[in-house]
């Protein structure tokens, strides 16, 4: 059995990294993350550019504001949680056995990479690939590989880049590290400082029995840590897969373009993560916290699951444009449901149909022009009410499962109605209870033939009751034009309306 081998990935300054992962426009700018309640906020994380400007951890807001050109962002735990999920998800591609060793300001995990040489090559190669995968997700991390769990953790937390410690060389690899790497309690750290012990090598050189006699049994663990021999029971976690991205804004955002700028990056991250699992995005839920208004929620469902970023961004843009938020946006959350990558089997002799993804965008644009409920397929209601129908969203049905209408060649052409919505009220002249003339707002008509009445009624038990009398009427207008139309009398209110023309 091969000896255990662990790889630790450690992302320092995680509050800053998590925010800059979404806010890519600030990636090359000096950024400091403030944590705490106003006005007692302090810098909890910063990037390299900020250090070069003279800022440091623990500075107050007032001190940081005195440094010119510094971008101050508020810490967002939701963003860090989303970034942490991405971090673990990336690591899970290399080993199913993960243990999280994150702390308040750093995200770290240890992978059990025992026996992965045949999959990923030697540990150096695996470390490089792990670091590259994290970098592609927008996270910068250092990686250390060791046969000892704690050695890998300490080395990854204190050095940059990739470190591979050969088995048996743990003590040598840790020898130069400061005693601070052990996170000792303050009183014991002071004791070691008084003794002149500053590095792990010096601690490892102390006799174990004397150390335990003076500092207690925990001193044995510290010494073993410094020698790189402290054993560890691996406690693997289940790396969940949830497609969610969150971004909180430091100032409320009112412009849709600014939202889309962030949304594009979030969609990009979601699509990339789904693609790594050979999945696509089946739906995209948009949630926005608004300034003094209820939470904004919309869901985008493309006809086919896709990872086409431009297409999803266009749908998001059209959705937000059609339903703009009622107030400034404080935070944006995008959650996606994963779906199987769609495959469409085209037939050589199958008729051409609109491309589903393009049709989605077209329908969204049509809805933006005419209205949400004005575009779709008509569906006849199961009712005797004349002209009743409802609109359903248009989707290209699979020809094998689609409803087959009556063979059209066997259907004789029928007189079609052209509805007047809303119907025009008319004044009707009756003779022997039959219409003989009628008049609307513009002109008068003389009836040459009237067929009817066709009486219909229904829903008497509800407020949508109807009781009408229909007449098919042939008439001539005062200008001499012949028309065939449908006159309807509302029997309840005894009102006549011109409902439709036969055309």
């Amino acid at each position, binding site marked *: 059995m091969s000896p255990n081998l662990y790889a630790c990935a450690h992302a320092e300054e995680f509050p800053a990294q998590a925010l800059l992962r979404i806010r890519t426009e600030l990636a090359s700018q000096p950024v400091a993350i403030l944590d705490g309640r106003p006005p007692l906020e302090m810098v909890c994380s910063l990037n390299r550019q900020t250090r070069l400007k003279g800022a440091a951890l623990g500075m107050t807001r007032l001190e940081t504001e005195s440094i010119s050109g510094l971008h101050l962002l508020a810490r967002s735990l939701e963003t860090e949680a989303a970034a942490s999920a991405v971090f673990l998800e990336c690591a899970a591609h290399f080993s199913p056995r993960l243990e999280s060793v994150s702390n308040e300001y750093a995200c770290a995990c240890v992978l059990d990479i025992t026996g992965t040489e045949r999959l990923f090559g030697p540990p150096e190669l695996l470390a490089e690939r792990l670091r590259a995968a994290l970098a592609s997700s927008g996270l910068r991390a250092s990686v250390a590989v060791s046969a000892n769990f704690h050695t890998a953790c300490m080395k990854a937390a204190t050095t940059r880049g990739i470190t591979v410690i050969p088995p048996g060389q743990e003590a040598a690899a840790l020898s130069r590290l400061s005693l601070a790497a052990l996170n000792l309690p303050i009183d014991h750290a002071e004791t070691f400082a008084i003794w002149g012990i500053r590095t792990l090598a010096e601690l490892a050189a102390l006799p174990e029995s004397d150390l335990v006699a003076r500092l207690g049994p925990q001193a044995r663990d510290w010494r073993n840590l410094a020698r790189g021999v402290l054993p560890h029971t691996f406690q693997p976690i289940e790396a969940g897969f949830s497609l969610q991205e969150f971004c909180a804004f430091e100032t409320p955002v009112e412009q849709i373009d600014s939202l889309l700028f962030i949304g594009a990056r979030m969609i990009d991250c979601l699509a990339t993560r789904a693609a790594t699992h050979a999945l696509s995005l089946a739906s995209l839920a948009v949630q926005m916290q608004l300034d003094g208004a209820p939470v904004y929620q919309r869901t985008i469902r493309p006809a086919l699951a896709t990872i086409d970023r431009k297409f999803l961004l266009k749908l998001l843009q059209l959705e937000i444009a059609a339903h703009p938020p009622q107030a400034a946006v404080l935070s944006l959350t995008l959650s996606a449901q994963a779906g199987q990558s769609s495959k469409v089997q085209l037939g050589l002799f199958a008729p051409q149909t609109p491309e589903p993804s393009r049709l989605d965008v077209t329908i969204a644009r049509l809805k933006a022009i005419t209205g949400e409920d004005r575009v779709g397929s008509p569906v006849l209601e199961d009712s005797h009410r004349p002209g009743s129908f409802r609109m359903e969203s248009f989707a290209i049905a699979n020809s094998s499962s689609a409803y087959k209408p009556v063979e059209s060649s066997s259907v004789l052409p029928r007189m079609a109605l052209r509805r007047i*919505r809303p119907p025009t009220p008319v004044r009707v002249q009756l003779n022997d209870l039959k219409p003989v003339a009628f008049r609307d707002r513009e002109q008068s008509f003389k009836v040459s033939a009237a067929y009817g009445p066709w009486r219909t009624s229904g829903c008497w038990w509800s407020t949508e009751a109807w009781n009408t009398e229909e007449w098919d009427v042939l008439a001539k207008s005062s200008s001499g034009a012949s028309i065939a139309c449908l006159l309807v009398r509302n029997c309840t209110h005894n009102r006549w309306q011109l409902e439709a023309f036969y055309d």
Partner: protein
Amino acid sequence: MPSASALRIQIENALERRFPSALTPQPRTILETASTGIPEVDRLLDGGLPVGAISEITGPVSSGRTSLALAFLAQRTSEDRVCAWVDANDSLDSESAAANGVALKQLLWVRCKNQLQGTKPIERPDFSRPVFSRLDQALRATDLLLQAGGFAALVLDLGSTAPEHAAKVSLATWFRFRQAADRTRCSLLVLAQEPLSQSSAAVVLECAPLTAQSANQTVLGGCSYKVSPGRLASSIKTLSIAGQRKPPAVEWSATGAGQREASA
């Protein structure tokens, strides 16, 4: 003595700079057509309405324009094709469409609406603006659908739009529609009261009402309509020795609601 073909080649070579292929008849472009579902109209059009071109069906109210368009859509949807109806005045009757055999699931219906509805009343109502607004929506929707491609037929229903408003649509718009319809192989049917697209239309049919039939003097049994070609593309026109003559008008009839119930 040179043969006729040699003589022709000689003349063509001489005139090549000014009149290329002067004596060679131009190859006839045969437009693909699709049946309208009405045999009389198909005979008139030599097969049906052209695919990838604009066809205009014009006429007054009750002249059978809508019935003709629905019959055409019924044919196209029965072939598992997808069609669209851009309704400038929201006048399509879905029951009539279903009764004519249109597969409603394969029909995308765009119902333009008056954008001024719901706004606060103004002192002097501007009746022209809503019409333009609906017309503008219909044109934009048509443009989008034509650009999207994949629709076998698209009906732009301007049948209830006043001719003076519809005539203001620029010829450049119709030309763009023609190009897009040609590229996406879509039959664009324009229902209007008067011809609008002029030279961009491959076919213009003028419809007129003829007579109405009644059954037992109690039921409107159906109507007869007259269809005459207002303009036909050169490929559809019947060539004859006497020259290109406009084909005569044809009559066709549609059954009414009473006949429908009787046949059912």
